[in-house]
């Protein structure tokens, strides 16, 4: 199993979620994060003066998946999250040794 971590633009969250859902991925965990990267922050103004905010709000998705579907899930995320502008985000794939469902105690792929 793998843990897929995807950093995406927050306003793409709904689309990504919908796309995953139609591809059979039902569960995920989402966190509000701040990203630093090539996409530079933006300038804000305040009483006539400008200042720079150098982080960019992003949404982080964590999705546990069986090995077999990793490639597909990554594809689905890319398609739904892409805007072709800098800052579209990244996908990280980590090895996942075990998954346990708290309610039932099931483990492994059936617990996902």
């Amino acid at each position, binding site marked *: 199993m793998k843990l897929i971590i995807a950093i995406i633009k927050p306003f793409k969250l709904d689309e990504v979620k919908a796309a995953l859902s139609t591809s059979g991925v039902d569960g995920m965990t989402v966190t509000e994060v701040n990203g630093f990267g090539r996409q530079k922050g933006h*300038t*804000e*103004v*305040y*009483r*006539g*003066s*400008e*200042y*720079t*905010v150098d982080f960019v709000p992003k949404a982080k998705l964590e999705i546990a998946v069986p090995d077999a579907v990793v490639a597909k899930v990554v594809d689905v995320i890319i398609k739904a999250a892409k805007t072709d502008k800098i800052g579209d985000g990244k996908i990280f794939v980590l090895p996942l040794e075990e998954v346990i469902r708290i309610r039932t105690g099931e483990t492994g792929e059936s617990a996902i």
Partner: protein
Amino acid sequence: MWVLVTAFLVFFMQAGFMFLEAGFARERETVNVLLEGIVDTCLCGILFYAWGFAWMFGHGNGLIGWGDAAGHSWYCLQNLPDTYESTGVATLAFFLFQFAFADTCSTITSGAMLGRTGFWGDLWYSIGVSGFLYPIFGHWAWGPDGWLNSIPFWKAAPFHDFAGSTVVHTIGGMIALAGAIVLGPRLGRKFKRDGGGPMPYHNMTIASVGAVILWFGWYGFNPGSTLSAMDIAGVARVAANTTLAACAGGLGALIFVYPRSKKWDCGATVNGLLAGLVAITCPCYWVSPLGAIILGAVAGVIVILATDLLEYLRIDDPCGAWPVHGACGIWGTLSLGLFATGQFGAPTPTGADNSAGAVVKGLFYGGGTDQLVAQFIGNAAIGIGVFAVAMVLMYAVKATGTLRVAKEIEIEGLDLHEHGGTAYPDTRSSTH
């Protein structure tokens, strides 16, 4: 009763100031700002009771007062007459109205000093402001024997300050400036020419609504300063001029900053409308609606330029206390010398005293420069005087080691260290 109702409105400005200053502060010092607002008010009440009122509004000499003309002291509100001077207003009502003014002055100061001032330091300088600086300098202009009070010290034109562009706002603004200078900027605050800019505010919602509350309170500030509701036309004129100057100040600042950033800048507009209100405070009784609009719009521009100036001088004034109250207090005082229409004289309980010598006429209405010079002398005397003494006061507090908190405290926030808790401690993950 008019005086009481308007005193209540002026008092209510504290809620506006607390919202405005807390909104413009960072989250980590929010409780500090709020508590300062409350404690400054409480302190000011006790000090104004103890001696502030006597010093400011008592008879005495040109520099300070203390009691009635017969020499009985008014300390601790003793020996007060039933009604104050010739106003016909119950003295305790007049006391309350003037306490609310004093409180405003003291709160203005803290807006420039927030985020890094220790609470002991705040207590000391607040005692200095409410207990000494404001009543003494205020006496000069508004005390019955104050040397600026209606004395034609420059040709035939006496200095006039209807509701306090000089007395409340210039004084408050200049002390704020002294405080910001002596404190130095907040840690991490970089200025424009060093590639930086302002630090983030934490809540524009309460800051904006705070400004509207202040506008509402200003209807106590200015119209209440007629002291009498019998001068119906005067009160209505004051109220209408106050409104129009605020409108023009807000629009002036909005439009003036738009070309810079192509953004509709809410913080600038908020300070712009306050700038208009500060400016109209002195001349509101003597100018026309058109004059109010023009001088308000100019104030909206001045407040932005003054903010730029502080940025250039690397002075960190988180709320813009000096641009709003200092710079526009000066402008408002001077503007009387330009825009007074010459139709109205000194206010009396039943209306303007429009007798020949009493009317106030500014440069643009053919009155020449006499009134302008009188305004300049009065404002400069008080402004420079108070700034000098405030610098001494702030350095004195600094010498006690209580003015500025330690580096770690400032970085982690005043709330956690001085007040034992933050403003919003119940977050989801901590308690569910």
